[in-house]
């Protein structure tokens, strides 16, 4: 039973971490390699709140704002000139990741630090005591996914965004400001990365390089799922589940490799991944 809960909560964490990257990839066809750095940024926002002695809940909106603001600036300066050079955009955002990581190191030092969790203790689910915070993360992931679905399906901006995803040239021809859509998307995706950073840190710790392994897993999950939140949910459940199984039954080191290796093999056999 614990295994099932582990799988569900791990999938929820992976979903929260990957959603921002997926949104940027879906709309802009660009892989944001600074995603890991934005996750780290969000984690440090959570750390600041802890150090100031404020309620840990405050860390979540603060992390989102920090990520979104940073993403907005980055989109203007770095990403916009590289729209047509997708591989170069990967490189430039990777460079950004280095810069953000070094700035965080200069500001906070290199050491591993810990963040206070907003929820402590356990809940009893199906007769098992299980970490309440991990269960809360499932709700958080559902909220992120649901919020996005609402945004896409229920608002004018969402409609414009879907038009840009389907056919950017046509959307522009119809008077949709695709540059603005891209700008908002990137800021939103970065904000989500920051939020994810604040969400995951109570489970582990904070250090300037913490984002990189998350980036790798998120990257593979996004590539495998194409550009849909539903397939992303499916991919996180299947691959995240495999990761949990391998970690507990075989070895944690192999478990850490499960997602990247499985995703690469899935893509080799089926280039569309889980899409359609």
């Amino acid at each position, binding site marked *: 039973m614990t295994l099932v809960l582990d799988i569900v909560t791990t999938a929820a964490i992976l979903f929260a971490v990957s959603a921002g990257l997926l949104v940027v990839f879906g709309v802009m066809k660009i892989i944001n390699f600074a995603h890991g750095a934005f996750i780290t940024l969000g984690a440090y926002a959570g750390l600041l709140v802890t150090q100031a002695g404020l309620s840990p809940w405050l860390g979540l909106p603060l992390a989102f704002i920090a990520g979104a603001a940073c993403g907005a600036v980055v989109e203007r300066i770095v990403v916009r000139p*590289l729209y047509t050079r997708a591989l170069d955009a990967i*490189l430039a955002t990777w*460079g*950004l990741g280095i810069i953000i990581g070094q*700035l965080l190191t200069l500001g906070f030092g290199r050491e591993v630090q810990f963040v206070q969790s907003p929820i402590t203790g356990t809940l009893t689910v199906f007769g098992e005591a299980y970490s309440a915070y991990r269960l809360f993360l499932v709700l958080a992931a559902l909220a992120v996914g649901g919020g996005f679905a609402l945004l896409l399906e229920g608002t004018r901006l969402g409609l414009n965004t879907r038009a840009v995803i389907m056919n950017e040239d046509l959307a522009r021809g119809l008077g949709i400001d695709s540059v603005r859509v891209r700008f908002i998307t990137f800021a939103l995706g970065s904000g989500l990365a920051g939020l994810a950073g604040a969400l995951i840190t109570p489970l582990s710790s904070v250090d300037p390089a913490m984002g990189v392994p998350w980036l790798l897993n998120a*990257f593979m999950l996004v590539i495998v799922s194409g550009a849909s939140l539903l397939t992303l949910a499916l991919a996180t459940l299947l691959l995240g589940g495999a990761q949990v199984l391998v970690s507990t039954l075989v070895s944690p080191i*192999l478990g850490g490799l499960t997602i990247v*290796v499985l995703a*690469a093999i899935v893509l*080799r056999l089926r280039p569309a991944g889980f899409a359609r």
Partner: protein
Amino acid sequence: MKRMAAAALAGALVVAIAPFVLDGYTANVLVRSLLFGVLALSVDLLWGFTGFLTFGQSAFFGVGAYAYALTATQLGVDGFLLPVSLLLGLLAPAVLALLQGWLSFYHRATPLYASVVSLVVPVVVTQVLYSGGTFTGSSSGLTGYDMPDLSVPQWLWLCGGLLVLLTAAAAVFVRSDAGRLLVALRDNEMRCAFLGIPTTRLRIGLLIAMAAVAGLAGWLYAAYSGVVAPELAGFDLGTQAVIWVALGGRGTLVGPVLGAIGIDLTSAYLSGSLPFLWRLLVGLAFILVIVLLPQGLFPAIGRLILHRRRAAPVAPPALVPAATATARARGEALAVSDVARHFGALPVLSGVSLRAAAGELLSLVGPNGAGKTTLIRCLSDGTERSGGTVHILGQRLGSLPPHRCVALGLGRKFQTANVFDSLTVAECLRIARATIDRPSPWRRAGTLALPDAAMEVVQATGLDRLLGEEARLLAHGQKQALELAMVLALDPALVLLDEPTAGLTRSERLQIGGILRRLAQDHGMCLLLVEHDLDFVREISTRMVVLHQGRMVLDGTVEEVAASDLVRTIYAGEPH
């Protein structure tokens, strides 16, 4: 060529005197930087020339390093064991590269996927090294093993000499006729495949060679430094190598080498006093170069100093006639039976059967969406169709990939002009001949042999006066003619042409029309032509086939088809 020799000589000279002018610390670090230069060189050949952005060359460097460290700890490296260890340092990375290549490169693989796999490989290798227990030394790595008895100056000469040698060899190779293939792969992999070039095998082969080069650098690094750790194989070193190459200037060979040495040396000095600030500056410089100066620093500085003194253009080769299959079989060139193609539940083609003999000029007409281009695809790529059989010159098409289909005697001209933008006209034509006249890996041939038909197109359209011109600078009509000449350079028996006159002026159309007719009449080729313009088709075809909504509705002489009511209703859009 002279400039290259001078540069190599200057490099060798610098290496020779370096131990006498450098202090001990710098010389010590420089050996490592030189080996990183070798690593950067391998990244540049893959990324700068063939366009494969790889983050994973570090994996081969690390495997090479562990090959030395493991043989030294387990067996020792005395006497004959040293060459055994070296062999392992070359072979182990090569085998890993074969695996990576098989995963990364296949028919219809995307460049992004190859980059994804290149990220996975170092992550996996590092984890394997971490979990190797006492055998690999886990996270602390291996140290204290036997090292060759060389002094630091000797190491400098060895590694510096190797770097100069490899850079010079790479420079000779990329300028040779065979080396242009790398650029052709980067510019247009599909066109390469449809010229009969085994692109997948080429890419895997190059990756294996570059893995061995990176492995050699790692092997030397382990032998020199006496320490190996899993980080040597890591993704971080792999991305650093990409940064060196980008800053130095991708596709310039010397730039990436200088980039690696410069950055690694400086960071050795600054990592003591300003470790984080230094990485910050490198990251900043990296972004600036990617966004503002994609060609990198080395070419930019070169332009500033040398001021318009670009290398003299190489004289284009002289055109000579090539031996052709003079006695072309007069038999059946193409036999198609019951071919179908559907995407999911949506049928695009069904039940198409037709035959064509040598000397025929068969036109395929029909409104937009009739399935004409889809049919051409099914005939030139065995993996495309969903059902039916295709025979080219009596040989089964089966499910062969494009380059094998071309080997059966087929040539395909695409709808939009499909050439190699950064190659010259002569180089494009030579790439087209690559499967017939094996290009030299170290020099440029003085002549270019073309079969009669290709020669005729080149001369009739004035391309023979533009042999040294880069293809991207050609006018639209000239590009179309160049692609046709490239296809004919294969000396095909069956030529598939998808709207060869699209976007051409009236006089150009007439010229191409005349050439096509002669290809069928005088050269005995079988031509299958997709066209919209009924008048043009009527003038040149020997037979016409009408496709409508994915089915063949007519197959007959020009007169029969042109006179039929069906064609009139289809083209006039009347209900039927």
